[in-house]
C-alpha cells in the first residue's frame, strides 16, 4: 500500500493502531460509528489532522495537538493514517 516515493522513509497508509510509536501521522479517513467519528473529529482527530501515537496498550495513547487522548483499540482500527517510518513490505 505504498503511496510515497521517498526511498529511505516510505510513506504509507495504515490503520492508526499499526503506525509506529512516536511517528507523526496524518489522518486520512475515519470509519467508525457515526457518533464516535463525530466525537473524534471535534476532539481534534479529523481528516487532515496530525497525530502521533505515544504508547500502545489495550488502548492507544495518542498526542493530538498537545493533548493526550486514550482511544479504544477498535476506534484506532477505524482511523486510517498516512505515515512515514513503516518500511514497505
Amino acid at each position, binding site marked *: 500500500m505504498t503511496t510515497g516515493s521517498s526511498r529511505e522513509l516510505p510513506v504509507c497508509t495504515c490503520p492508526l493502531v499499526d503506525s509506529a510509536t512516536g511517528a507523526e501521522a496524518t489522518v486520512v479517513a475515519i470509519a467508525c460509528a457515526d457518533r464516535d467519528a463525530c466525537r473524534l*473529529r471535534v476532539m481534534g482527530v479529523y481528516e487532515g489532522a496530525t497525530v502521533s501515537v505515544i504508547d500502545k496498550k489495550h488502548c492507544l495513547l495518542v498526542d493530538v495537538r498537545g493533548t*493526550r487522548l486514550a482511544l479504544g483499540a477498535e476506534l484506532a482500527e477505524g482511523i486510517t493514517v498516512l505515515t512515514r517510518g513503516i518500511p514497505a513490505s
Partner: protein
Amino acid sequence: MAVGTPGSAPASGALRVAIIGNPNTGKTTLFNALTGLRQRVGNFAGVTVERVEGGFQMPDGRRITVVDLPGAYSLAATSPDERIALDVLRGHDGREPRPDVVLVVVDATHLGRNLFLASQVCELGLPVVVALNQVDAAAARGITVDVPALIHELGVPIVPTVASRGEGLDPLRRALVAAATLPAPTPRFALDESAETTAARYGWITDVIARTVRQRASASGSASDRIDAIALHRLGGPILFLVVMALVFQAVFSWATPVQDAIESGVLGVGHAIGQLVPEGDLRSLVVDGVFAGVGSVLVFLPQIALLFAFISVLEQSGYMARAAFLMDRLMRRVGLNGKSFIPMLSGYACAVPGIMATRTIEDPKDRLATILVVPLMSCSARLPVYTLLIGAFVPAMPLLPGLDLQGATMLAMYLLGTVAALGVAALFRRTLLRGPVRPMILELPPYRWPSPRSIAIIVWQRSVLFLRRAGTVILALSIVLWALATFPRTPVAPDAPPAVAQETQLANSALGRFGRAIEPAVAPLGYDWKIGVSILASFAAREVFVSTMGTIYGVGDAGESALADALRAERRPDGTAAYTPLIAVSLMVFYVFALMCMSTIAVTVREAGGGRIGWRWAAIQFAYMLALAYGAAWLVLVVGRAMGLG
C-alpha cells in the same frame, strides 16, 4: 426533570453570564474566583455535571449573574452533561432566556483544540468574551500567545487569566459588562459538524494558531509523560493503583486513631460531666445514654471521614482519576462497559450521590444506567463508621506488610469486595436488561498537577460540616426516638437484683426490645441478635445510624460507661459465650458492603434513571438486588466461616 441549583428569577437589570468551554479548562475555578463560591474543582474532564448559579457586583453596584456549566467539546451534545450546557446556551433550558453574554473559557496550553468550541460559540449570535485561562501553565511550557493578534483573528474581546490564582479578574469583569453592548461576531462556517465543516474549521484554527502562538521547542518529553510511563505501565500501573489504595485505607484506619481516641474520651467526659449536672432519672438517661451515647458514637468517626475525603481530593486534583479509568478500561470492557464508567465508580468511594451524578458524562444511555445501578456498591464514607467500629473491636492490628496491618487489609478487602461486586453486577446487567455492544473509550488524560492544599482543605471542611450536620439532625433525632423506645415502658424489677441484670431486663421488655425480638427471626439465620437487627433496620435511614443505635442500646443497657467497641466485645449470650465473634463482625461488614441504605441515593437514582415511573422502577431494582446480595453474602460468610471452624 430539572437539574442543578434552582436559579432565582433574574433581578431586573442583572446581566446574565454563562460560562462555557471544554472540560477541565478551569471554568469552575474561574466561577469560584468571580463569585466567591466554593464549587468542586478537579483535574479531570467532567467534574461539573450540573448548572450552578452565582453572582457578583460591579463597583458601580450593577449585579452580574454567572452560571457555571459542565464542559463540552462542541455544540453537538453527545452526553447528558453536555446537553445541560448547550441547552442553557441555546435558551432551551425552559427556565430562563438565553444569557446576555457568553464567557468562553479556553485553556492556553491546548488552544488548538479549545478554539474549536470557542469559534462555534462565537457564531451563535450572542456577545462573547473569551478568558484565555491557564496562561501560567502555558508560560511554563514555553507557549506564548499574542493576545492582540488573537483578538483580531477571533473578533471578540479576550482576557488572559490565571483562575487558580485569581489573576485577570478585574479586566474580565469589565470586559463582560462592556461586551453586553457589542455586536455579536459574524459567523465563518456552518454550524453543522460534518466531516467537511469540521476539517475546514480546524484548518482555519491551524492558521490562526500559526499566526498567534509561539512555542519554544521543548527538549524532552513532559513530566506528565514520564509519570505516565510508570502509572500506565501494563504491570506497574495496576500494582501502583492497588498500593495507593492499600495505603489510603491503612492511613484512614491508623492515622485517624489518635484523634478518634481523643474525641471518644472527650465525648464520654462531657457526657459524664453533663450527667452529673442533671438529676438522676429519665432526663439524665436521655442525655447520657440517648444523645451522648448515640450521637457521640458516630461523632468519633469524623477524623476518618475527613482523611478519606482528603485522599479522594488528592486523587481528583492530581489528574490520577483519568489514569485509573485508563487502567481499568481493560477490565471494564470484559464487563461490557468502558473505562470512563470507572470515574463515577471511583467518586462513589466518597459518596454515591455525586458518583451517580457523574454518570452524566457517559454518552451511551445503557452504559450510563448500568453504571448508575452499581455505583452504590462502591463503599462510601457512610460505611466507614460501621467498618471502623467493627474492625476496631474485632480485628487485631497484626502487621502484614510494611505499612499495612490486618485492620487496614480488612478495610481494603471490604472496599475491594464492593468494587468486584460492582463489576460483576454490571456485567450481569449488560448481558440481560441492558444488553448492547461495548462502546469504545475516548478519554482525555489531563497533565498531572500538584493538588492545592487550599482546595483540599475546602473539601475536607465542607464534608466535615455535612457529616456534623447529619449527626446533629437525623442521627440526633433517631437517637432520641430509639432511647425512648429502649427505655419505655418500664418493667418493675426486683429491688435486690444487681444493676446489670435489672437494666438488661428493662431493655428486653422495652418497646424496642419487644419489637427487636419480633424481627429477630429475620436476622437470626445470619447469626445476629435482636440488637443488631434493630440497628440494621434503623440504619435504612442512614448507614451511620447503625453505630448510633448500637450506642444508644448499649448506653441504656449498660451499667458502666465504656466505649462502644468494648461493650460489643464484652456482650454475652445467655449461655455465657461471646455474642459477637469476629466472624459475625465480618458477616455484618459484608452486609453493609452490599446493602443500599441511603435515602439520597434512592432519590438521585430515581431522577437520573429517567424520573417518574421508569426512574422508580430502576431504583426498586437497585434496592432489591442490593438487599438480596447483602443478605445472601452475609449468610454465606457465616456458613462458610462456621464450616471452617471460625467462631
